[in-house]
């Protein structure tokens, strides 16, 4: 285990702070590395209940690896551990988190990645963040410190509250500790690039390839280029490279790993090259300012023809990844228009500015009712992350 990892258990202080907020009838804003949330001082004025200043719960100090045994394929970490530290500790043992947690700013924490349910380029092939969560500890809205799941691969005792927290954005409680499955790093990786005439051509190729037993571990399409990453044993990667380049249209990109890292962390030019999307001072982040571009993440069935979404933006406003299942769009369109398109193809959309979530597909009907009931079950006083 790396010596340079900070190791501090603040859980009892966090429980006390939650209890204090309950006693003072205050809302709580959970703040980790600060990479994905508006700074709270910008938020309070937007609260529907302006009289109630939220208490800030700083969780990034609760950090460090609690236990890690490579042969058990399980790591348990505190929520404030940075992605960078965690990845390097695993890499020392030749292991990794196969869902490729994004690290947007360098300060991103595993707690934030899990709470936001973020996964990198490998997601459709290796599984998502939630797929790798085995257990966690949570402070609920009653100030109770609870433990769900465990450190074993198979566990069906009680409801799967651990995976429910992934993507819940801290609205059901404060995650303080997470146990995750880890896997050996692939022996070999290679990126194949080929020119495509259209996004629909690339989707056609990717959908076809993903029904073959090839070790594809990432895919993307920007402009007229399609990128496919192969990961696995030397032998498997070799064989798959031959398959993908057999028609003479594909070439191996020796710098491919840099591309995937940039894509994962949203440092790729598509994300950074537009001043509307990146580098904005956080204080000016507001939901969908008219006239400025929002970065939309459209999560749709991978086989969805791009032509069905084409009137939302020209080809160069799109970046497709996850075999077509995750499509990024830079757009000034109204949220309603984006949601409607997403829903029409069986997907959903969320809008970001500088990696901060500013808009999210609304829930309706019985689904919305069940969400409210679940929130009530964990957080009856509506303590946590109200603006989510």
């Amino acid at each position, binding site marked *: 285990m790396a010596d340079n990892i900070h190791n501090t258990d603040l859980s009892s202080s966090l429980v006390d702070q939650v209890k204090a907020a309950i006693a003072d009838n205050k809302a709580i804003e959970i703040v980790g590395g600060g990479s994905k949330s508006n700074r709270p001082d910008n938020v309070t004025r937007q609260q529907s209940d302006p009289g109630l200043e939220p208490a800030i719960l700083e969780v990034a100090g609760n950090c460090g690896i609690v236990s890690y045994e490579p042969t058990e394929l399980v790591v348990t970490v505190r929520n404030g551990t940075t992605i960078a530290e965690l990845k390097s500790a695993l890499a020392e043992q030749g292991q990794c988190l196969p869902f490729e947690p994004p690290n947007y700013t360098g300060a991103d924490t595993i707690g934030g990645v899990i709470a936001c349910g973020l996964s990198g380029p490998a997601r459709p092939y290796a599984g998502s963040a939630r797929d790798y969560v085995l257990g966690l500890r949570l402070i609920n809205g009653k100030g109770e410190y609870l433990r769900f799941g465990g450190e074993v691969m198979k566990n069906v005792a009680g409801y799967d509250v651990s995976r429910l927290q992934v993507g819940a954005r801290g609205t059901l409680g404060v995650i303080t500790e997470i146990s995750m499955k880890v896997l050996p790093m692939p022996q070999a990786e290679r990126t194949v690039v080929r020119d495509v005439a259209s996004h629909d051509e690339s989707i056609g190729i990717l959908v076809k390839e993903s029904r073959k037993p*090839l070790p594809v571990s990432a895919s993307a399409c920007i402009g007229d280029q399609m990128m496919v990453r192969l990961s696995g044993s030397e032998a498997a990667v070799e*064989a798959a490279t031959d398959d993908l380049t057999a028609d003479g249209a594909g070439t191996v990109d020796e710098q491919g790993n840099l591309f995937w890292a940039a894509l994962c962390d949203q440092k790729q030019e598509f994300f950074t090259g537009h001043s509307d999307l990146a580098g904005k001072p956080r204080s000016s982040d507001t939901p969908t300012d008219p006239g400025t571009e929002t970065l939309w993440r459209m999560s749709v069935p991978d086989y969805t023809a791009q032509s069905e979404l084409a009137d939302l933006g020209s080809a160069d406003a799109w970046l497709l990844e996850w075999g077509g299942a995750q499509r990024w769009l830079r757009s000034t369109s109204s949220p309603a228009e984006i949601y409607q398109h997403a829903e029409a193809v069986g997907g959903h959309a969320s809008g970001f500015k500088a990696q901060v979530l500013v808009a999210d597909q609304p829930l309706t009907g019985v689904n919305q009712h069940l969400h409210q009931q679940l929130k009530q079950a964990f957080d009856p006083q509506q303590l946590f992350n109200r603006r989510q």
Partner: protein
Amino acid sequence: MTASPQASSPDAHDVNLADPTTQVEREQRRKEAAAALAQWLPQHSILQSREELGPYESDGLTALKQTPLLVVLPETIEQVQAIMRWATETVTPVVARGAGTGLSGGALPHPDGILLGLAKFNRILELNPESGYAVVQPGVRNLAISEAARPHGLYYAPDPSSQIACSIGGNVAENSGGVHCLKYGLTVHNVTQLKVVTADGQLLTIGSHAADSAGYDLLALLTGSEGMLAITVEITVKLLPVPPSARLVMATFASVEDAGLAVGEVIAAGIIPAGLELMDNPAIRAAEAFAKCGYPVDAAALLLCELDGLDAEVAAQIEGVNKVFNDCNAVSQHIANTEEERLLLWKGRKSAFPAVGRLAPDYYCIDGTIPRKTLPEVLRKMDLLSEEYGLRIANVFHAGDGNLHPLILFDSNQPGELERTEELGSRILQLCVEVGGTITGEHGVGMEKINEMCVQFDEQTLLQFHAIKHAFDPLGILNPGKAIPTLQRCAEFGAMHVHNGELPFPELERY
């Protein structure tokens, strides 16, 4: 679970209430309920005579039996909705049932409730080879999905040993695993969308054909929720490409500890086998006698290690595994020469339960999961417990993911032996919790392990589970009394154990 017919002897727990006035009242209610449901269901979908109800009085855990008020076998989603609306109006318990192969009594009927059988939902609605998914009804058998996908070079990965008979709806309710879940995951990793009917009869789609959905991950919450939160009426599963090559290494070891060590070393070498199974000598002997599959009966421990993928990849991994097993003092190693031999060697493992069942009139299967490194300690302590209770134990172990299935051999015709077996089982589960594991890896809590939930979770956590249940089912009509114990039940269970001596593992952190 007790899987042999003898378990239905009078010694089995009959949870029927014997109060005669209650019985008269119940007959009256039975007639009323049947008449009410006939508004929405055809007569052949309503079973109410003793003879008709008999086959439904237990699931795969035959030690627990109960006669339901009625069995209903709806044929459409609208009928399921109508049943649930009626159940909500009349506050009638509803227990959903798939193929009835569950091993934890999850589908044990409620004496005042209806048993909602989903057997008629048995169609594959869509199989889309281009996009790699299948939309199926909950009564479709697990293996039938893979059989239908096979001509397209695809299959459905989770393969519980009962896959010939168990239904996909039951797999969702239990979050079933299988021998290949180390590499391919559990049901929760292979299901992308559910259509469910809520307790009050509303139809809801959870998940999607996209990678994720807006809002909370209800798909994860519903999977493995044991029929406590909603009734699943349609399921979309992922179909994966069949690996071009699958090869099986069988290795024997002089001790279970050596074999356990070898498992850790394979993983340390960076190899994730598709399946990695360990059997101890009693299990090897039983399986060989039953399946005649070529296991060496004098081995103390046997590992089955399957590797799959592209030909070249598998060849390289076989080489790696052979070297690891050699370094770990394997007594013998054998690679299945043909596909027939590979399947035969698996048949031995997959029939281990019935095979062990032939060694004694009855057997009781435990489903604890433990951190793999604690295997030697757990086996040693189980040996001591086996002596203490005078009952034999055979062990099969999903070694890759730490899921242990000790099989306790007993004879329910011997007075008190079932009770002693259940107590031994409970002690083994508490041992699993003690070493950092869990009371159930894949069979579910159901009715069987409801007391042990009190060992694994503290009061606040159990109350949080009840709050989740309440969010979905405020009247508590879905599978009442299962999966999550009441605090009162835990108090009684705790009191019983204090009475027997010390509280089990007072030093334990309870979770």
